[in-house]
């Protein structure tokens, strides 16, 4: 197997490394001068987040560079961890147990197996068509009609968000783009970089400028300044690294912009779910960030749109 690592991918990794070193340095300085009081707690949270970013970026970079199998294993794990957080908050009942067992132990491996096999047709309809129907059938066979639609719909949403949407990230490896053969790892890197950078930049702009909340009934942290500054600066970052994509500068800017907007919407949707269930975070697996779903909420909603736009406009 030829390596997927080329000069452009190494430059992307190098760029992320530089950003992390820079962030850690700033975190260190802030820690030295933060003193006591409430500011201290915020600085400590920021430093915990930066440390977690080192781990997440390393795991992601390594799995991307090991080729298809590495990325598929990584994102299938993310799907399972996300599902567990989602289902924990879901209003499921005892009768839903078997349906959930299927979702965890059959649907997830098969969906990622289809990506590995390169079977695009079944990959793209299995969950929205067959699993959607299967979940409803399995629950109805269990015979408990109490809040039937709510329970069924929640499970369907769980599989859609945590498995189907997340699997679109490694699915980028399936696309055949003329002149970009064997280079799709960079596409994956581009998407994740832009979306995650957008999250970080929204946080930074929001904290730096503050101002009016964009959706006060949903999230106390999202401001207009964060939204505009974050999406625009992440789009700029995506444009700067256009050479790593098959899109060209204008195309890269457009794709990055769409990804950040979808990511922002994803963050809002997942915040609304959390608010409804009365929790602040989906979990506590990632120090400083919360759960896995708290970290990938924006990626979930950006990935499928990014995939299909790329497929429609750029793939053969």
């Amino acid at each position, binding site marked *: 197997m030829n390596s997927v690592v080329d000069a452009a991918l190494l430059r992307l990794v190098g760029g992320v490394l530089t950003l992390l070193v820079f962030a850690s340095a700033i975190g260190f300085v802030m820690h030295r001068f933060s003193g006591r009081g409430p500011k201290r707690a915020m600085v400590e949270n920021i430093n915990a987040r930066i440390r977690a970013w080192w781990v997440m970026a390393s795991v992601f970079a390594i799995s991307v560079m090991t080729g298809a199998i590495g990325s598929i294993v990584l994102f299938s794990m993310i799907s*399972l961890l996300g599902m*567990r*957080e989602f*289902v*924990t908050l879901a209003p*499921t*009942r*005892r009768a839903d*147990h*078997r349906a*959930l*067992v299927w979702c*965890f*132990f059959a649907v997830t491996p098969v969906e990622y197996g289809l990506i590995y096999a390169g079977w695009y047709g079944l990959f793209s309809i299995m969950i929205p068509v067959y699993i959607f129907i299967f979940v409803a059938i399995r629950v109805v066979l269990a015979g408990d009609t109490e809040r039937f639609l709510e329970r069924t719909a929640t499970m369907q949403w769980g599989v859609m968000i945590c498995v189907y949407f997340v699997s679109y990230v490694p699915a980028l490896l399936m696309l055949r783009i003329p002149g970009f053969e064997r280079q799709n790892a960079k596409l994956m890197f581009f998407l994740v970089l832009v979306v995650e950078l957008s999250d970080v930049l929204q946080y930074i702009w929001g904290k730096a400028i503050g101002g009016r909340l964009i959706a006060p009934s949903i999230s106390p942290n999202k401001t207009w300044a964060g939204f505009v500054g974050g999406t625009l600066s992440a789009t700029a970052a995506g444009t700067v690294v256009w050479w790593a994509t098959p899109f060209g500068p204008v195309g890269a800017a457009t794709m990055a912009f769409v990804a950040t907007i979808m990511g922002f919407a994803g963050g809002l949707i997942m915040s609304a779910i959390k608010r409804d269930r009365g929790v602040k975070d989906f*979990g*506590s697996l990632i120090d400083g960030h919360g759960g896995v779903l708290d970290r990938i909420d924006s990626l979930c909603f950006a990935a499928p749109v990014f995939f299909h736009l790329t497929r429609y406009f750029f793939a053969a």
Partner: protein
Amino acid sequence: MIAGILAKTSSLVCGTSVEWRCDPHSSAQRVYFGNHSSHLDFVIIWSALPAEARRLVRPVAGSDYWQRGVVRRHLADRVFHAVLISRTPGIGCRCDAAKASVRRMADEIGARCSLIVFPEGTRGVDGEVGAFKSGLFHLSRLRPDVELVPVFLENLNRILPKGEVLPVPMLSRVVFGSPLPRVPGEGKQEFLARSREALVHLQVAS
């Protein structure tokens, strides 16, 4: 080694987060009493304990279940050091046999060990905490020197409900409460109601 691996695996599968409202490293002998809703219950309490406490804790379990088959017997004897008792069918009948079991628990822990017990006697349905059987009361009478620590288990009934074989690996929570205060001269019913209350109250975040 088996114990270590088993503890790690089970807390990983059940995504357990542990909350202590008493000193986890206390050297006091304790009776950990928990709500019972799943086969995973005692393994999860056991794996949530610090390693040194885990070596000294002995779960009380039904001999009818744990003496079936070589693997279960090995686990019960060598890994968990379980105190196996024969379960008395129904409530209130065969009082002597029940008393004998409690006396055995009190004897078996000697001067060093702790116990894990489930005072409901059997697994409840849908996460509800049932009425306590009298075993905990008699145990507290026989061993007034031992701390009674309530342990609330959340979500394990959803991870592995009664009658299911495969778990759904959701997240779970274990809360160790502070030891139950001793009330001199307290009657059996008051004691049982009070200890059940202490357990149920742990599900409210402190």
